């Protein structure tokens, strides 16, 4: 199968993720959308890895998975800290720093 179709799917997933980050207001959903963006890149990496016939893309994808997990862990921790402080869990309501 042509690598183009994998790229089309990957670009679509990346765009959905980006749109989600821009329009959703709940930080949890935003984190999910960031995951979508990272996994779109993973799909592209693995498709290219098959197309070029070398392993570098696959190794890259594995490393991206680890990093994505770390990022989500930190993000969830922050959201829990904000929730405990009884601050609004909504990125539009958190606006104490605009000036």
């Amino acid at each position, binding site marked *: 199968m042509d690598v183009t179709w994998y790229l089309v799917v990957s670009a679509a997933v990346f765009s959905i993720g980006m749109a989600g980050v821009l329009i959703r207001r709940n930080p949890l959903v935003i984190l999910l959308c960031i995951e979508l963006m990272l996994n779109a890149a993973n799909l592209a990496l693995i498709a*290219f890895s098959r197309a070029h016939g070398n392993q*570098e893309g696959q190794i890259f994808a594995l490393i991206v998975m680890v*990093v994505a997990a770390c990022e989500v862990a930190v993000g969830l921790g922050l959201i829990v800290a904000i929730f405990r402080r009884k601050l609004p869990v909504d990125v539009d309501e958190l606006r104490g720093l605009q000036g």
Partner: protein
Amino acid sequence: MNAILAATVKTPDIDWGALGPLIALTVGACVVLMTGLLRSPAARTNLVPALATLTLIVAGALAIGQWDSNADVLEEALRMDNLALAMTVLFCFAGVLTVALSLRDLAPRDAGHGEYYALLLVAVMGMVVLASAQNLVTVFLGFEVLSIPLYVLCATHLSSEGSLESGLKYLIIGSVGSACLLYGLALLYGATGATDFDAIAQAVGGGEIRGDVLFLSALALILTGLAFKASVAPFHQWTPDVYEGAPTPVTAFMAVATKAAALAIIVRLFDVAVVGAVDDWAPAMAALAVITMLVGNVGAIGQSSVKRMLAYSSVAQAGYMLVGVIVSTRLGVQALTFYLVAYVLMNMAAFAVIVARERETGLGDDISALRGLGAERPTLAWPITIAMLALAGFPATMGFWGKIYLIDAAVDNGWAWLGVAIVLGSSLSLVYYLRVVAAVWMPSLESSVAVAARPAGARPIMAGASPEADDVADTRAGAVPAGGDTPTASTARGTHEERTDADIGDGRDPSGRDRAADRDHVGRDHRHVHQPEVVLVAVACAAAVLLLGVFPDPLFDVARDVGEAFGNFD
């Protein structure tokens, strides 16, 4: 069985010596984290920062020790050339200063000393990886190892809402930036079939993929991702909010070290890996640089918070430094290196003074906290004056030589109009840098300027509730202020200050939500905070800015070494 025992495992060839700084930082981070678990509070508050400082000094020394060796490490995943080593020393230096600024801060106490300093060390490690990356995988890894600890560090001041908010904002925007970068790296891998910089440079140099859509989108996405981290306009919007909300020592570290790391990887990626396509990316980056200078310098003008002002100023400085990348010559790399060193010293001096004043006045980072500093605290007034003049590019400071060097590099390779843009940007920046200098040395003049320049719609506070007004009351009651003025003079000044306070008090908000919380922690007797290490950082950085401004030759030599060992320019 015997055959198995006799067989030897073929190990990859690893240059452990060249990895020394990274190993030191990793071990140090683990040790610091474990030391933070000790029972005795004295051990936690004193031993942990001491160990962190020791780690950073060792890592810096190991980097200096291999100067000029230009080793390729781990199958060319990293290259410890002079640029990487100079950046390593710079990051370690910034780390040591950050430890000094954090010693009496509330953030490490809130988050746990072990965690705070271990995160700082891991962030420095990520920066070293990023600055020496020679492979797309290492670029992404370094980028994230640097970013994730910083997201947490921003939010470490748990009792402050602003700190949590800045942490979440930085996390979301930083992650979008890294996702863009990652997608760009994936496309670059797809277009060239390699993750190694040298192999990519070869593929790009061949010329077949130059007009490739895949390759051009890769460049655009990579530039976007890195622009987020280096706070290049129009991807800078997070900068003022995050800088303002984060604990000030963390802000100082982010402002100087993150920017240096981001620019180091920009220069590596664009001037080594895809330098063959310079005609494709240089115009786009030049446009970004000019927009960045304009947005940063105009944005800084109306700010009453010094941290926000420095955030916009750092945006503008990123614009100047991009010029060193755009010209893609050895001279450009040298100028960028020189400017980065100058930038770290200038900003560290300024942030040290802000940290000191935050603790002494309870006014937070508002510009009024600096008012009258010249008469009261010359040891703080001179450093911030020198830092502001150097950032603006006055002669006899490092900032001047840095800009001359950048303009020289720009003119040398046919980008003279970028040199003109730097000059225009610097003259625009005088508006806000000199406002700080005026606030420090001319209290009466500053108050009228500040009233005129404050943004509309700021929240009001009660006049008389500010600690400064309390000081005025103290002075009137006959207490001698720290400066040791004669009673008549200070009473006269006090009366004047009270009036200007009332003028200002109706519109400005020097004590926001979290600043009010800070003030409760600091206590009322804010004039007598004992913090010699902060003053020392300010004075030392300012002295270095002046000294290397008058005798810049040693640093020129370092920059030349860096440029000569860098890349494969003709």
